[in-house]
């Protein structure tokens, strides 16, 4: 049993009034000096100084009226089975993150968004009243969800379903949720890799950190991406080169590059001429390129098992070697009069995996803008989420429409008042009748 306005229970002190009146009422009666009581006494069929037997009943009735009225004022709420059930079922506002990162596949065969939606639906079913918000910026919606919850009665809970990429929900935004409202985070775990949308294109995510959060944009390179470098090979090798390029696209995401780089395969007709004119790298950006290529893990891993096709020219700097120490590819500055500034001499067959690795490595080295390290989105770790969460401690006062059981007490009070009136009247009626009879006798 709960009271909506327990302070009204102080009204029980009013019980003292009828009791005191009952005890001291006779003494409290106004005194009136009167010439003689003779005539007054004659009019009374029986002495009234003795307290009437109905007085005690009246006192009890009056006390009961006060108790009932006070209890009615205090607005009690009985804990019934249905009420306790509804108290256990909180009002729930669910914010589902539909941002880009949620489009990724989960370990199941669905996207994170779909999984989040089905989770949310399950939570909606177990809530007393609920609100579902789908947004690509859950943090912004917290305040709105909280204000909706504040208008609800009973236990209240705010649930955020997201992959909790950094920036999706900030700790500062949680401040908008008033104390007493529970906050729960449900993570929809996405498998690490971005989903491949079709067999040719790669969908990648560009995440950029900004002052107010992190934003992510999907990047879907066009199929006919222009390589930021030229591929020089014999015509008969064009199919192999094309296959290698396609394979390399899985890794590379294009952007605009102003550097003029060419990959020269052994089958290229004027390769010997290019080798003759080539020299050592001299520009700073060429050193940068060399550094990236030599540190390319993909190139390094693939080239260990590469089969070298003829000896590689010993110019410039070698960028990859196989297990037997043979140079798989080397990089050099192009000679004067050449069409390109920098030449990468590949010493493998164009159709091999090593060729693909070289193409991909050169592409990422020449055009490193979307660093793959940045592509991997950062997530808010679980420990931090647990720290942000809080249980629904406070049970909100039910809104005015949440009717209390006070009306039953009011009804009782009114019924008791009626009974009191009847009890109070009945002896009087008898008394009055007796009085008139007495006076009639006297007249006679």
């Amino acid at each position: 049993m709960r009271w909506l306005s327990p302070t009204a229970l102080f009204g029980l002190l009013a019980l003292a009034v009828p009791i005191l009146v009952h005890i001291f009422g006779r003494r409290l009666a106004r005194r009136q000096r009167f010439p003689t009581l003779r005539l007054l006494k004659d009019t009374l069929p029986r002495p009234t100084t003795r307290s009437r037997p109905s007085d005690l009943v009246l006192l009890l009735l009056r006390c009961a009226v006060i108790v009932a009225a006070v209890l009615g004022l205090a607005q009690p709420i009985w804990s019934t089975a249905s009420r306790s059930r509804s108290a256990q079922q909180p009002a729930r506002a669910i914010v589902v993150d539909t941002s880009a990162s949620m489009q990724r596949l989960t370990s199941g065969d669905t996207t994170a968004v779909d999984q989040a939606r089905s989770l949310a639906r399950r939570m909606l079913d177990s809530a007393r009243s609920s609100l579902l918000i789908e947004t690509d910026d859950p943090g912004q919606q917290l305040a709105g969800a909280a204000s909706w919850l504040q208008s609800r009665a009973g236990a209240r809970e705010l649930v955020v379903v997201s992959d909790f990429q950094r920036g999706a929900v900030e700790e500062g935004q949680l401040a908008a949720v008033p104390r007493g409202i529970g906050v729960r985070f449900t993570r929809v775990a996405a498998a690490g890799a971005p989903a491949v949308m079709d067999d040719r294109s790669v969908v990648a995510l560009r995440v950029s950190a900004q002052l107010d959060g992190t934003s992510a944009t999907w990047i879907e390179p066009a199929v006919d991406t222009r390589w930021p470098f030229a591929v020089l090979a014999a015509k008969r090798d064009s199919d192999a080169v094309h296959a290698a390029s396609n394979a390399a696209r899985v890794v590379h995401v294009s952007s605009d590059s102003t550097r003029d780089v060419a990959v020269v395969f052994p089958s290229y007709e004027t390769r010997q001429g290019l080798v003759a004119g080539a020299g050592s790298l001299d520009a700073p950006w060429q050193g940068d390129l060399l550094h990236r290529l030599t540190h390319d893990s993909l190139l390094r891993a693939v080239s260990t098992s590469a089969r070298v096709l003829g000896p590689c020219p010993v110019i410039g700097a070698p960028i990859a070697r196989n297990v037997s120490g043979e140079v798989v590819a080397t990089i050099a500055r192009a000679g004067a009069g050449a069409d390109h500034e920098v030449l990468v001499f590949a010493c493998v067959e164009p159709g091999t995996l090593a060729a693909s690795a070289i193409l991909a490595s050169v592409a990422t080295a020449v055009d490193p803008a979307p660093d793959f390290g940045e592509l991997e989105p950062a997530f808010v770790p679980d420990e931090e989420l647990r720290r942000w969460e809080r249980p629904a401690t406070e049970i909100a006062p039910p809104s005015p429409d949440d009717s209390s059981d006070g009306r039953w007490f009011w009804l009782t009070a009114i019924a008791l008042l009626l009974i009191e009136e009847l009890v109070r009247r009945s002896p009087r009626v008898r008394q009055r009748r007796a009085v008139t009879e007495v006076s009639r006798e006297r007249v006679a």
Partner: protein
Amino acid sequence: MTSALSPDVVSAIDDLELAARLVVEGLRAGSHRSPFHGYSSEFQQHRPYRVGDDLKYLDWKLLARTDRLYTRQFRETTSMSVMLVVDGSASMAFPEAGVSKWCYATIVAASLAHLIVSQGDAVGLLAMADNRMTYLPAKGGRPHLRSMIATIDRIQPAGTWSPARGISRGAELLKRRGVVIVISDFQDVEADTHRELRRVASHGHDVAMLQVIAPDESHFPYRGDIEFEDMESGERRVIDASTVAGPYRAAFDNFLTRSRDNALRDHVDYALMNTGTPPGPALRDFLMRRGAKPGGHHAGTRNTP
């Protein structure tokens, strides 16, 4: 001009003598015969002289004219004695706010005394407060009136009175037949009072009862539980006034009717005086009724003044 001095105005006049004079002056304004007739040695008729008649009443001028002996006869020539018996019991102090019955009674008594003395009759006083009698013999004259008014003024209503004792004693003190006017609320021992009034009246006295009541007694304007205290016995009783109001009013009316009926039966003059009405007109009504009443005054025909 008839005095319509309201009771509270009259009672506000501290000087009881002045108040009485004001009331009486109002009475005088109307022309009426003295209700306490008796003093004026008014010539009534001649009758033939009989041996033994006092020669001083012989009409010498008639003897000279007609050579016959006639004796002049006069109406009552002795002065009347009026005894005012005033109830000074505690119940007369009601109501405690406003004009009490006692206050009203003293004004009526003083006015009567003033009137009687100014007509040359004798007036006496017997007031009984707290069962003690204050007595002034019936006499005439201004000094007597003044001391009498002062005496009434000094009395404070208290205790009870014994109407039987008061009335019989007042009648005894008159020594000879006279007028006994009892001013009271007649709330005490009704039976005794009426028996005594009847007895005194049967002894040849002219008896009048002035019953003084207060409006609150007759209207009973009380409501709810009230502890009523008997002003004389001090007895207290909590009574629901609303319940008894109706029966009480009926009982009070009965009481008044009973008083009047008893008075009529016993040939006692009766007047009801309500403290809510001016004393002048009430007194005037009473006196006019007395004046109109045959034999209401002592107008015995006598030879001797």
